[in-house]
């Protein structure tokens, strides 16, 4: 049994079916890249894992627990940390308040998050709404880390950011893998960066898993076919 295991996951938005059979396996301490073109079901898959999309069928197991019947907050408490698409920090709260609002005991605390992202320490008392996009993204990652997750899920964490800030985020993710040994499920469009950090990859096409395996085995022809790069 893998650390995170999805088998035959189907999901629906009302009468419209978005996922038709997603299979995904991730071992503890691994980084898995979840890839696919726009609209292929990556964000829906994440929503199913985090129980934000409840109209779903199939198996979702994490750390030996069946997540399919849990409400979202209980699913999160099993050790899932989500960095959502579009960041969505709590705008009126300061950086420090955003981080402590949902903190749970564990190795990640305010000081450690600031060590990973020194800019957050510098902006400690600034409201989230006044931060740059990159800083908000760091805050969103920091907020998820403060819940001391066992699996960090990042949905388009570098989308729309300046190249220098993207590099900072990728370097932080590499640090999380190398030093913290955290399991990561990363959705992103930058294949080059994903190749550098991910151990395995899963590619979705029209709501189904069409390729899964070690990142090193992902041939350029497969990437061309399903990712259009």
């Amino acid at each position, binding site marked *: 049994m893998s650390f995170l295991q999805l088998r035959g996951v189907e999901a629906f938005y009302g009468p419209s079916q978005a996922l038709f059979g997603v299979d995904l396996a991730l071992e503890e301490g691994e980084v898995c890249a979840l890839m696919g073109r726009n609209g292929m079901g990556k964000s829906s898959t994440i929503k199913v894992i985090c129980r934000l999309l409840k109209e779903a069928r199939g198996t979702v197991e994490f750390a030996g627990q069946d997540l399919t019947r849990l409400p979202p907050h209980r699913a*999160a408490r099993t050790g899932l*940390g*989500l960095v959502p698409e579009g960041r969505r920090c*709590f705008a*009126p*709260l300061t950086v420090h*308040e*955003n981080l402590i609002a*949902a903190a749970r005991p564990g190795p990640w605390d305010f000081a450690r998050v600031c060590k990973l992202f020194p800019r957050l320490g510098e902006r400690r008392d600034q409201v989230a709404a006044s931060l740059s996009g990159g800083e908000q993204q760091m805050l969103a990652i920091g*907020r998820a880390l403060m819940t001391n997750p066992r699996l960090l899920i990042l949905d388009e964490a570098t989308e729309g950011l300046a190249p220098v800030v993207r590099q900072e985020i990728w370097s932080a993710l590499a640090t999380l893998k190398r030093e913290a040994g955290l399991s990561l499920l990363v959705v992103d469009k930058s294949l080059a960066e994903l190749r550098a950090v991910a151990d395995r990859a899963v590619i979705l096409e029209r709501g189904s898993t069409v390729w899964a395996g070690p990142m090193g085995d992902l041939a350029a022809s497969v990437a061309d076919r399903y990712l259009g790069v």
Partner: protein
Amino acid sequence: MIQRETLINWALFALLPATALIALWMDEPFIITLATKVAILALAGVGLNIALGLGGLVSLGHAAFFGIGGYAMGILASHAQSYAPLMQTPVLIEGTTSMPVIWLVAILASALAALAIGALSLRTTGVYFIMITLAFGQMLYYFAISWPAYGGEDGLSIYVRNGFPGLNTLDPIQFFAVAFVVLAAVLFFAGRLARAPFGLALAAARQNPERVETVGLAPYRLRLVAFVLSGAVTGLAGALFADLNRFVSPTMFSWQMSGEIMIFVILGGVGRLFGPVAGAALFILLEHVLGGLSDYWHVYLGGLLLLVVLFARGGMIGLAAGREVAHD
């Protein structure tokens, strides 16, 4: 650097005892009583502000808790007055005129009521939440009217002021001191609550409930705890208000009372720690200044409320201090 809002808060905080002390020096006990009324009504507003300001819960039924607190005082004191026990079996429960005991009963009774009302009401949102809280308030109002054992529609008069160890609570300035210290303690608690992880999570849940769920928090539970704390504080205010008037009646449960408590919060500034203090002070001032000129002073109050809602969304505190600076 101390923010402007902090200075305004401290000024408001000092103004209330200063008014009472000047009134004492001028031998104007009525003004001391008015200052006491402001402190107690502000306390009720601080209670509502926990639910409304922090949690975004527009409750139009907070008079339920205000009334429960009032009747807790009225029932306990009336039994102490008549020497008739409240209950004989299975255990003997007698009335009391001890303020701390009455406060404890008022807090527990209103917190329990808030737990029951909140557990049901918080399953709804928006206008349904407003209506269901209003309905609970009105249910208790009609229950009090049809409860002849405690005065029914006529209410219940208490002939003595309840006691506080070491104080003569019949002395207006000493009773003011009691009410003011309770207000100060609750303001301190509410201020700490807003900055604690619970308060921050509650504020976050108001903004984005789904996001709060993904970090492992249940918005329903956060709101329920806030609603219970809010009801308990409003209940405590009800007990003090009944003590001030030495009278309780079903009007404490009425929807007009809920509306007035909400007006204190809106006038002063929703979510501003000292908003209810400013709002209650202005309300009482208008009641006595404009009320002396016209019986229809509520018309002017309505006009003022309209102006505040349209042009000063942060209420009087917001108007004076500007935009809220991240939990100064």
